[in-house]
């Protein structure tokens, strides 16, 4: 078979046209010297003897669609002419590259599959210029990329070096914060979601917060209650996250880099799933890392960040205030001796409407600091 083909091919190779088949199955004829500009096609012709007739059309890689091929051939048609000056070529390239991002990506991909390096460079540079100066959100929009980094991943991971004493210290602090935060959220949920009523008294709650060893029974009760609540909260959370993304788009549309103090309202994050973890670990401040589900840890860390970020006052005073004035939304900042000095409106008054509050979930914008690539969530700066 090979010899006959060779006899047929040799004179055929004098023909100026070759046959190419694109990803959609269509076959077309192309001037050979233009097509040969692509190393892959060149290889197919010379090494494998393909392309001389419709029957042995060169199968182009999947990533080369007919429209993209046509663009590539235009590029080759121009550049394979030897006499052109560098200035001409550069000027052509600059005009050639002007197209929408989608086509540009297809072109980059196709050029890469055909091993056409100059075009890959040209398109890559163009893509780089598109990316430069944009925020992550903008980049995602332009390229239709998923926002699939978890909040935990967006921040620098603190795990892995858990034998480092500093990490253990931080984990200890985190555990305490988680406890406090969880408790606060639980109390808020008590007010908001009437269907889940926590029947424990204020005293019980206070002793729970203070880590009172002497009431394990109370805790066990709460644990069971929370297990039942978990599913419902999870569902609520999913639906509210969807709503959040709409809200986020508006917020981000306005002013992505700078926290817009009107738009960034602190609202509750509906927190679930943490309670079971702490049922075991409550009184064990030892190495917290053992035995905590990583997925749960992510949520926990997020809560802690949330707490740290919202922290503007002393915990015990605030706790008392929340317990005594259930409906009050504004918080005051107290000095250690109890006198209030400046009234900072840390949150705008939230309507007492459970639905709206679920919608206003914290939108966390992330920006990695140019100083150190460390990513922190945007602060919620108190309204001046």
């Amino acid at each position, binding site marked *: 078979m090979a010899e006959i083909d060779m006899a047929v091919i040799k004179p055929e190779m004098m023909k100026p046209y070759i046959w190419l088949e694109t990803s959609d199955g269509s076959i077309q004829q192309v001037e050979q010297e233009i097509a040969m500009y692509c190393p892959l096609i060149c290889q197919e012709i010379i090494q494998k003897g393909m392309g001389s007739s419709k029957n042995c059309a060169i199968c182009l890689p999947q990533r080369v669609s007919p429209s993209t091929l046509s663009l590539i051939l235009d590029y080759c048609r121009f550049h394979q002419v030897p006499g052109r000056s560098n200035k001409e070529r550069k000027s052509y390239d600059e005009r050639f590259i002007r197209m929408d991002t989608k086509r540009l990506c297809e072109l980059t*991909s196709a050029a890469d599959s055909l091993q056409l390096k100059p075009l890959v460079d040209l398109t890559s540079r163009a893509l780089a210029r598109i990316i430069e100066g944009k925020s992550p959100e903008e*980049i995602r929009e332009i390229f239709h990329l998923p926002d699939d980094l978890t909040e935990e991943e*967006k921040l620098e991971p603190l795990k892995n070096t858990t034998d480092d004493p500093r990490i253990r210290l931080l984990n200890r602090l985190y555990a305490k914060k988680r406890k406090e935060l969880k408790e606060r959220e639980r109390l808020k949920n008590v007010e908001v979601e009437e269907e889940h009523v926590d029947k424990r008294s204020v005293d019980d709650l206070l002793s729970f917060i203070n880590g009172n060893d002497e009431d394990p029974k109370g805790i066990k009760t709460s644990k069971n209650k929370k297990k039942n609540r978990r599913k419902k909260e999870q569902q609520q959370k999913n639906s509210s996250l969807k709503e959040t993304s709409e809200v986020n788009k508006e917020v981000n549309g306005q002013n992505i880099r700078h926290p817009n103090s009107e738009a960034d309202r602190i609202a509750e994050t509906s927190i679930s799933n943490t309670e079971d973890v702490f049922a075991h670990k409550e009184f064990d401040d030892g190495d917290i890392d053992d035995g905590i589900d990583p997925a749960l840890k992510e949520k926990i860390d997020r809560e802690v960040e949330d707490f*740290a970020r919202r922290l503007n006052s002393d915990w015990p005073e605030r706790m008392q205030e929340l317990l005594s004035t259930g409906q009050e939304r504004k918080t005051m900042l107290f000095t250690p001796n109890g006198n209030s000095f400046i009234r900072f409106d840390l949150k705008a008054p939230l309507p007492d409407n459970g639905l709206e509050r679920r919608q206003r979930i914290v939108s966390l914008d992330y920006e990695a600091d*140019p*100083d150190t690539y*460390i990513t922190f969530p945007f602060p919620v700066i108190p309204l001046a």
Partner: protein
Amino acid sequence: MQKMSYTFSFPEEVLEHVFSFIEGERDRNAISLVCKSWYEIERWCRRKVFVGNCYAVSPVMVIKRFPEVRSIALKGKPHFADFNLVPEGWGGYVCPWIAAMACAFPWLEEIRLKRMVITDDSLELIAKSFKNFKVLVLTSCEGFTTDGLAAIAANCRNLKELDLQESEVDDLSSGHWLSHFPDSYTSLVSLNISCLGNEVSLSALERLLGRCPNLQTLRLNRAVPLDRLPNLLSRCPQLVELGTGVYSTEMRPEVFSNLEAAFSGCKQLKSLSGFWDVLPSYLPAVYPICSRLTSLNLSYAIIQSSDLIKLISQCPNLLRLWVLDYIEDAGLYTLAASCKDLRELRVFPSDPFGLEPNVALTEKGLVSVSEGCPKLQSVLYFCRQMSNAALHTIARNRPNLTRFRLCIIEPRTPDYLTLDPLDSGFGAIVEHCKDLQRLSLSGLLTDRVFEYIGTYGKKLEMLSVAFAGDSDLGLHHVLSGCDNLRKLEIRDCPFGDKPLLANAAKLETMRSLWMSTCSVSYGACKRLGQKMPRLNVEVIDERGPPDSRPDNCPVEKLYIYRTIAGPRLDMPGFVWTMEDDSSLRIE
């Protein structure tokens, strides 16, 4: 459902190739936050890392996340260390970084350090561990000797840049460390030894210059005599940047003509510095090249105004001028008239501790430069008098200012015309200069100026404050208003606990906050440290442990910075980190 991403068909190498054209820190960080796959690809191909505060991350973390780093820049001590406000031994040791990188980054090419402590051992480790080491820049560093430099010279075959700007080096070898560059070594591009105290071996230097055809930058130290300069220059006529040594010697005509010829022979020379102990009659030797000069650093040069005028009027292409206040208003008028492309002006005080002005430099000089130089972006100006009117004029003339540092020498000096505080003047600056990134305040200032800064300083990244403000409200305005604030340094201001605690969350968005001789109590520091695990709240107090004084006693100095590496373990005896569990401190 979600649309297919446009880059779904890209193999990783293609995305990496795209990323290879993106170098800026902010852009790389943005890429890494787009999505999981981009995060992964980006971290594997990031080649340059900048760590603005060496205690904000640990070496292990950097290495883990960016395994293929070729270039690293680290900064250590806070900026106020330049004004001797940070006691000796505070920290900023680079040793753990070098040790970690020696194992992890065998292909490391560049190390740039600022305000860090580096020992000879570290220098030797660098010299031996990184086979392709190319760039070592040590700005305002200390802790090493010329022995360490000798190790670098001897071992780094591919070294391109050795830059010791303003570092403190123990000069042990009387200049012989230079001879450690082997005869086969030819790749030098940049050498800055201007901070060295002792003579270097001139013959070794001459040979070195002669065999390095790519040399572009040469900054000599004071000890290089002027009459040897022509010889050195003749070996490297391709120089672009030159720092002379001492600029005086016996006045001899042949020295002058040699010098003039040597300067003229350097056809690419664009930047001059050095000029210690200037003998004015030698200045005209540079006249032939003045028209090419874009950068002139005369901050060590005692040159009177009339000579400066003659010099500057021949430099129409000047972009940057650093000069002593001997330039006086008259010289600045000439600058404004002659150097229309000027981007940066720094005027340093010749006699900062004198009680009376020794030169005729006032606000008028700065005003005239702001009028005459439309591209002026960066100003550092020491003077003794200022007025609100002048500041208003400057602000209106130059809304494109990005850096404005005004240092009125005597603290709390009011507007000399009206005796008012300078609030309104600085307010005009922040209001008109919308892209202002860096600001230093001085003079008599009340809380008002901070209100302006908080309201208008939306792009402000660094603010330096001294002897200003009336109350806590001042600090609160800044912390709550300046959205992009990264570095805040404050000394001798009446700011206390409340604005810090109220804006605790803000501190986590900044690189660092320095407060010295303010009214922040030990109790507040403790609370802040306990509540904010990702801040290191360091109390610096040379009076002894803060525990030995009541909680409401103000601390001497406070340095707060965000970190994901936890409290540092290398603190000296006079630094305490406020944390939750002090029993964990390793002494």
